[in-house]
């Protein structure tokens, strides 16, 4: 019984060629291509998922950080605003005070002026009254005086006595 070592049978060589090449062709088309693509895609999607998770984590950290920053800034701003408001309030109060004082002073001044005016007017009126009264009195007195002819002549004589003709 001879052994195949030195004499590979042509039929087996031929059929192995056919079978292997056919297998290679069919598996390449219907198995290896879809399988390798699916594996590749899955690996890519896993990698993408991991990368995006990493990114999301970084984004999260960034957001937290930003939030903290914002909070800090807001707090600082609030403090500033409060401080400013307090200052403003003080200012306003101070301003109001000065304004009120000025206004008061002005009012007082005005009042004083008014009073002075009134006084002056009153004094003028008093003066007028006094003058008219005195005129009335004088007229009445004169009327009285002129009723008595003798007295008038005496007076004129008296006045003429004083007048020295030069």
């Amino acid at each position, binding site marked *: *019984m001879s052994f195949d070592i030195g004499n590979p049978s042509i039929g087996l060589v031929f059929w192995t060629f056919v079978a292997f090449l056919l297998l*290679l062709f069919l598996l390449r088309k219907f198995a290896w291509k879809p399988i390798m693509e699916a*594996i590749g895609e899955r690996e890519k999607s896993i990698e993408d998922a991991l990368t995006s998770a990493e990114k999301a984590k970084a984004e999260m950290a960034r957001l937290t950080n930003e939030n903290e920053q914002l909070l800090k800034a807001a707090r600082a701003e609030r403090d500033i605003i409060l401080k400013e408001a307090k200052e403003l309030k003080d200012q306003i109060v101070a301003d109001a005070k000065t304004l009120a004082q000025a206004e008061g002073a002005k009012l007082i001044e005005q009042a004083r002026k008014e009073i002075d005016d009134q006084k002056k007017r009153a004094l003028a009126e008093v003066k007028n009254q006094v003058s008219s009264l005195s005129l009335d009195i004088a007229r009445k007195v004169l009327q009285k005086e002129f009723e008595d002819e003798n007295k008038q002549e005496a007076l004129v004589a008296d006045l003429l006595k004083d007048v020295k003709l030069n």
Partner: protein
Amino acid sequence: MDFRHFFDSKKISFIAIFAVLTTFSVVQAADTPTVNSAAIDSHGAHGEGEFQPTDVIMEHISDAHDWHLWGHSSIPLPVILYTDKGFEFFLSSQFHHGEHDYRGKHYTYRLVDKKKIQVVNAAGQIDEEASKKIWDFSITKNVASMFLSVFLLLLIFTSVAKAYKKREGKAPKGLQSFLEPIILFVRDDIARPNIGHKYARFMPLLLTIFFFIWINNLMGLIPIFPGAANVTGNIAVTFVLAFIVLIVVNVNGNKYYWKHILLPDVPWWLYPIMIPVELVGVISRPFALMIRLFANITAGHIIILSLISLIFVFKSLAIAPVSLAFVLFMNVLELLVAALQAFIFTLLTALFIGMAVEEHH
């Protein structure tokens, strides 16, 4: 409690595997002498009842024109002959295991030594001249077994590919989850490190080589019908695989590869030595692939068959337990070798391709 349950199921599965392997061994043991006696009966050349382990083993690891089932029953396989007068098609059962000659359209044929088909002339003598002119393209046991493996591979991997389409982007399941690590192993541990970034182009070839060799090795380990052929232990098969590797490597060889062979980095007066050495290297690498796979698988078959033959050499049933223990050990070892040889063949193929497509030295 959970752990104990787990342990129990493991133990049970181990026993099951043990039982299956033992059964196979027993079947193999039962298988061997029947064939042998049949062979002796039909030939009658080696003397009555004289056990010839060499003949038995050689018959088992050689190709055949029928696929033996049990006892005297076997599946006849188609015989395809190309003669100088045209093709001949008939079933191998026409030979009646070599007892009868078959009168075909063009010649009368005789099955010699159960595997070689010769032309017989009118006087019943073998016609050497005419025999040289016929080409035997028969579907032999190895070819049929190989077709079965190819069919199984197509079935397995198209269904796996379908699973990938159906469960797109999801984790693998079932057969898919069993094969994916192996596919990834071929990609990440064989192709990528040896070929580099151009690995994707060679993946189909490497995967096909790996699974083709592996499944044929495994089929060869099954001692009964759907297996039992020594496909990867036949030099014709390993020759074809190695030849394809040779073609792929040299077709894809870039200018660095050819410069290394034709204009090596040595003083010019060494060229007459170096160039032939390099050219021999081109051939010897796939040649080593061919011999390695053939020798490993054939050796495994020979060892197992020899151990079984011991029972019949010693003509004692007492030797059977010892023989079976060794056969069991060898079967388990051969399971490892089946995967290992497929791995080595694929790895070296990837390495040779890597050497051919490497950009710089």
